[in-house]
């Protein structure tokens, strides 16, 4: 039975809100609020109530929660990971409660995922009358949504820099997202997916046979949430580069490649560095081997795992003769500085690539 008074909300991360919405509404049978798109206001609101030195994902989440609470969300959620993120849910909830907000909080870090009993118990936070069968039934479509999002975004990443008509990829994709929001079942999804796959592939391109490829790596949040990296993938594409990124929900949640990546990174990093750091190293190695002209690591300011990955990345850079640049983001990062360094990055890879060709 759908609980009308429960309004669930996950903080924004890329475009996965559509998957969260589907599983909440069709699996947990509660309403889902897609929070307003992240803006400068989101970050300002979040930064104001967060510890100054905490990494930026925390601040973005706080901002999203506040904006969602304003709009009537009353059941907030937080994910978990291989670093201090595991404490974030607890702290998020505490700060918000101290501010006087009332809400339920589903913290994935608090769940013992090996015990079905514990899982169901925690799921009852979201909906006390939960029907676990419904949740299980909703999963295939939820996962499919994620896979389609990632597939389409990969396609855009590789081609948007070469579109003949400016803005065509973005426009088409936006239209797709608008329809995805109200998808009811797998059949509808399949039709929608087919239609837009054809349309996206049909967008006229002006792509040379040899392009400059650039690999994009970094911490889980910053590499995936475009606002938090100042839309860097788009900026790189605008220079006329093909952008490659491995980290997404498909490759981490649905088909967890963590083990495979740790193996690739083994020569450089024997031990787990925490969070996505080993993956970052592995992805950089793969991109270097596959002929990327340059690699960019983005990370939240103060992200320990990714800081630890930096010197390792420099070894990779040396061994494979591929430049690797690091960008760090927090609420104070100047857009002009990022822009300047990005332009220099383009000049650098372009000059070197021209020489090789």
């Amino acid at each position, binding site marked *: 039975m759908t609980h009308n008074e429960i309004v669930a909300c996950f903080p924004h991360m890329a475009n996965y809100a559509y998957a969260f919405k589907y599983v909440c509404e069709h699996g947990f049978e509660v309403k889902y609020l897609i929070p307003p798109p992240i803006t400068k*206001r*989101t970050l300002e609101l979040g930064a104001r109530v967060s510890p100054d030195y905490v990494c930026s994902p925390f601040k973005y989440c706080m901002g999203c929660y506040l904006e969602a609470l304003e709009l009537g969300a009353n059941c907030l959620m937080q994910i978990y990971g291989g670093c201090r993120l595991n404490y974030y849910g607890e702290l998020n909830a505490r700060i918000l409660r101290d501010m006087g907000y009332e809400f339920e909080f589903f913290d994935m870090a608090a769940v013992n995922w090996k015990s079905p009993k514990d899982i169901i118990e925690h799921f009852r936070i979201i909906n006390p009358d939960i029907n676990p069968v419904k949740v299980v039934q909703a999963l295939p479509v939820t996962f499919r949504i994620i896979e389609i999002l990632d597939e389409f975004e990969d396609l855009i990443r590789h081609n948007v820099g070469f579109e003949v008509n400016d803005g065509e990829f973005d426009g088409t994709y936006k239209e797709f997202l608008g329809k995805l929001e109200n998808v009811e079942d797998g059949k509808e999804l399949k039709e929608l997916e087919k239609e837009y796959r054809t349309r996206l592939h049909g967008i006229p391109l002006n792509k040379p046979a040899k392009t400059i490829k650039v690999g994009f790596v970094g911490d889980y949040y910053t590499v995936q949430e475009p606002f938090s990296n100042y839309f860097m993938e788009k900026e790189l594409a605008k220079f006329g580069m093909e952008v490659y990124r491995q980290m997404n929900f498909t490759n981490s949640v649905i088909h967890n490649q963590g083990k495979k990546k740790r193996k690739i990174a083994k020569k450089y990093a024997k031990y787990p560095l925490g969070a996505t750091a080993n993956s970052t190293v592995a992805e950089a190695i793969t991109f270097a081997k596959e002929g990327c002209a340059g690699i960019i690591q983005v990370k939240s300011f103060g992200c320990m795992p990714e800081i630890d990955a930096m010197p390792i990345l420099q070894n990779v*850079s*040396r061994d494979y003769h591929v430049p690797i640049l690091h960008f760090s983001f927090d609420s104070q990062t100047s857009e002009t*500085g990022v822009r*300047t*360094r990005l*332009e*220099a990055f383009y000049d650098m890879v372009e000059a070197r690539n021209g020489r090789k060709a």
Partner: protein
Amino acid sequence: MNKAYLGIDIGSISTKGVVIDAENNILAKEYLWTEGDPMGAVKRLLKALEAQMKGIDAEIVSVGTTGSARKLIGVITGASVVKNEITAHAIGTTTIHPDVRTIFEIGGQDSKIVIIENGFVTDYAMNTLCAAGTGSFLSSQAHRLGVSVEDFGEIALTSKKPTNIAARCTVFAESDLVHKAQIGHKKEDIIAGLCKAVVANYLNNIGKGKKIMPPIVFQGGVSKNVGVKKAFEEAVGHEVIVDENGHLMGAFGVAVLARKSGKERPFSFDTADIEFRTRGFECAKCANHCEIICVYREKELIDSWGNKCENGAVRTAG
């Protein structure tokens, strides 16, 4: 009439201009303070360069701009090349020192390192966060010690036993300096210690993990300080080259790029007399509140930027 090329580098502290001929010879050069007014600074710069160009049989056919106000000044001067300062510095330096491997640059408010292999940039870093390694830090400390920055380097060279100064951060360095002066360290030792501290700070921050190979060229305002130059040489164990026009390398580099671009557009020093205005406002169409800059020539809107999306675009007439 021979062809000439103008390069302008507008930073937050200083503005530099260079005019070169087709063989990269410098025909005119100028360096002045930006004083928080990039447009005013460029007008003064153009006047000064115009005066130097009197009697030289050359005409500027292409302009390049770099530095933090490169875009704005590029619009005003009708530049054919607008380049970031990292690339501009690298191009300028490799033009004069083709075999350079490392560029150190310490300016008034920021510092950079650029690593070059076979004439191509392979790595770089920039620091704008901490003042401890920069020129403004050195001049404020010189002031505190009652010596002028110009004499600073020479005094440092007379020291036999540089004082150790904690260089991690400006605030610590300052209090440590006061402390060392009180317990009786000699002035020249403190000054030499400061030069070492600046170098240590630089190498530990932006130089971290970089493969520093000779030849090394040292640029930026602080490169004029022989004390810092010597401290660099001791720290990296190689000779460090400082050349007379090192502070102009960004402007020179972008002039070279303007020449190589092959794009020629008429330019007149009279630009200095045209009234340009910028107007900034906040887009109110969403919570991003983008700051949009509009540039006007006389009354006419000639360019605008700053909007993150199409909804905030300001259309220029015509």
